[in-house]
């Protein structure tokens, strides 16, 4: 199985991620302003973590990028790999959102064109769910369901992968396993990733770049220049984490 997987993943390295350009992005629900005048540029195959307190507009940002919410004002520009065509965007949510009436495999294959259907079973293998193809999602554990949801998002070979607190509901051990899995898949597929998270450590372990979104504004934007694989106990990482947590705590009472 693994040998079958290899050629496809190799071919994917040419298909690298989309470029994201946000200019003056503004979003309001009635009188409530969620995103204010947001400028953000994400490069091809970049892994960006969006951190911030809840209610800071993180999820709304992802929904706009996924085409699920229209922006109130401003520009959203997505440029696919090689500049040609509409880039594929897929989103993974905190809840698995698997359809309970479809088998795990059919869930992963949802919306896939016929010629890409076997990539669904390949990805199920890649996320460690080999042999569970025909099971209903209800008999899978929480971690396994998130694995299936990740496989579903990746099966579309997205140029831009949006992750909305994908591991927030998992126990700590499963979460680190999933983070490592995500990282290894990203390192092979090289899609552009936008990860929204509450978890400062998760952002620092995974991302090339961390963006702080507070009160709908871009509060900070910096690179994480640590070599991979990053150890969660690394001193430099711990110092960064401390710093970021302070920032977030300061932001908290203002709301």
């Amino acid at each position: 199985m693994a040998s079958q997987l290899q050629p496809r993943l190799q071919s994917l390295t040419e298909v690298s991620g989309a470029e994201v350009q946000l200019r003056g992005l503004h979003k309001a629900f009635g009188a409530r302003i969620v995103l204010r005048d947001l400028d953000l540029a994400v490069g091809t195959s970049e892994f960006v973590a969006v951190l911030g307190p809840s209610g800071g507009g993180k999820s709304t940002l992802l929904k706009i990028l996924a085409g699920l919410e229209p922006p109130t004002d401003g520009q959203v520009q997505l440029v696919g790999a090689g500049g040609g065509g509409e880039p594929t965007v897929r989103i993974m949510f905190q809840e698995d959102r698997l359809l309970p009436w479809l088998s795990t495999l059919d869930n992963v294959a949802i919306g896939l064109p016929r010629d890409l259907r076997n990539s669904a079973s390949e990805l199920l293998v890649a996320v460690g769910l080999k042999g569970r193809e025909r099971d209903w999602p209800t008999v899978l554990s929480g971690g396994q369901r998130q694995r299936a949801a990740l496989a579903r998002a990746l099966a579309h070979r997205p140029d831009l992968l949006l992750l909305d607190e994908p591991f927030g509901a998992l126990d700590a051990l499963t979460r680190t396993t999933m983070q490592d899995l995500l990282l290894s898949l990203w390192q092979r597929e090289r899609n552009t990733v936008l990860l929204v998270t509450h978890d400062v450590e998760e952002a620092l372990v995974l991302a090339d770049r961390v963006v702080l979104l507070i009160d709908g504004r871009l509060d900070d934007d910096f690179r994480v220049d640590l070599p991979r694989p990053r150890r969660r106990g690394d001193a430099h990482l711990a110092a960064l984490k401390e710093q970021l947590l302070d920032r977030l705590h300061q932001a908290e009472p203002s709301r």
Partner: protein
Amino acid sequence: MSLEVAAPAAPASSLRTHRPHHAASPALPTRPGRRATAPPAFVYWLVPVGVIVAVELASRLALVPAWLLPAPSAVAVTAWSLIVSGELPQHLLVSLRRVAIGLSIGASLGLLLGFAVGLSRWMEALADLSLQMLRTIPHLALLPLVIVWFGIGEEAKIFLVALGTLFPTYINTVHGIRNVDAKLTEMAQAYGLTPRERVLQVVLPGALPGILVGLRYAFGVAWLTLVVGETIAASSGIGYLAMDARLFMRTDVILLSVVIYALLGAASDGLSRLMERRFLRWHPNYNRASKA
């Protein structure tokens, strides 16, 4: 700090050690612990069989006059003779046909209207209030009017059955659609499903538990409607058989009709349960209840 140092070692091993546990666990919930002291099968039949035996005895010992309450054995004999003469199958077919046609019309309309109202705000604004108002009319109260309109022909019964089954199907379909998790439809949208595909792959299966409840209820209404319709305004069918027998004080035939109605009701209930088990295999609740 010591915790953080330990963390990096965890992922690789947790993947290995977790999997066997998960692989074994799914078998457990699908086979819920059968109660340790489950009563033997015959216990379930003790009461109904006892009642039949008691009635038989009461009639045989002339505790109750046979013309008031005929013995079950006498009813069985009557059933046999009516089957042999072809009378019973003929009436039975007529009744089945009425329910089949009426229910098909009523349930299809209910489903259609339910989907229209459940999926479109405009259709809801346009149709829901009117349907809810119509629903408050007991459809059997329309019987005199229906007789004026259609006489006592087939149309009258089919119309009433269709009318009676439309509303339970409609209401439960709308309810089922409303209950579909909006997060799932949002996911489907984000994964590039067209509105049509979303309805077929997400809304319809998600609403199916509700729709099947409506259908099961509609079955019950259909038979009830038919009993009334056939008893009051018919020249054929099981209800007519009973009313005709009344003229000759044939209580055995009347009782037989009642038993047949009961069997038909039970059969259609079984049919809807079969559909639930077939279409809701994925649903843990139905999956587990499948021993019933």
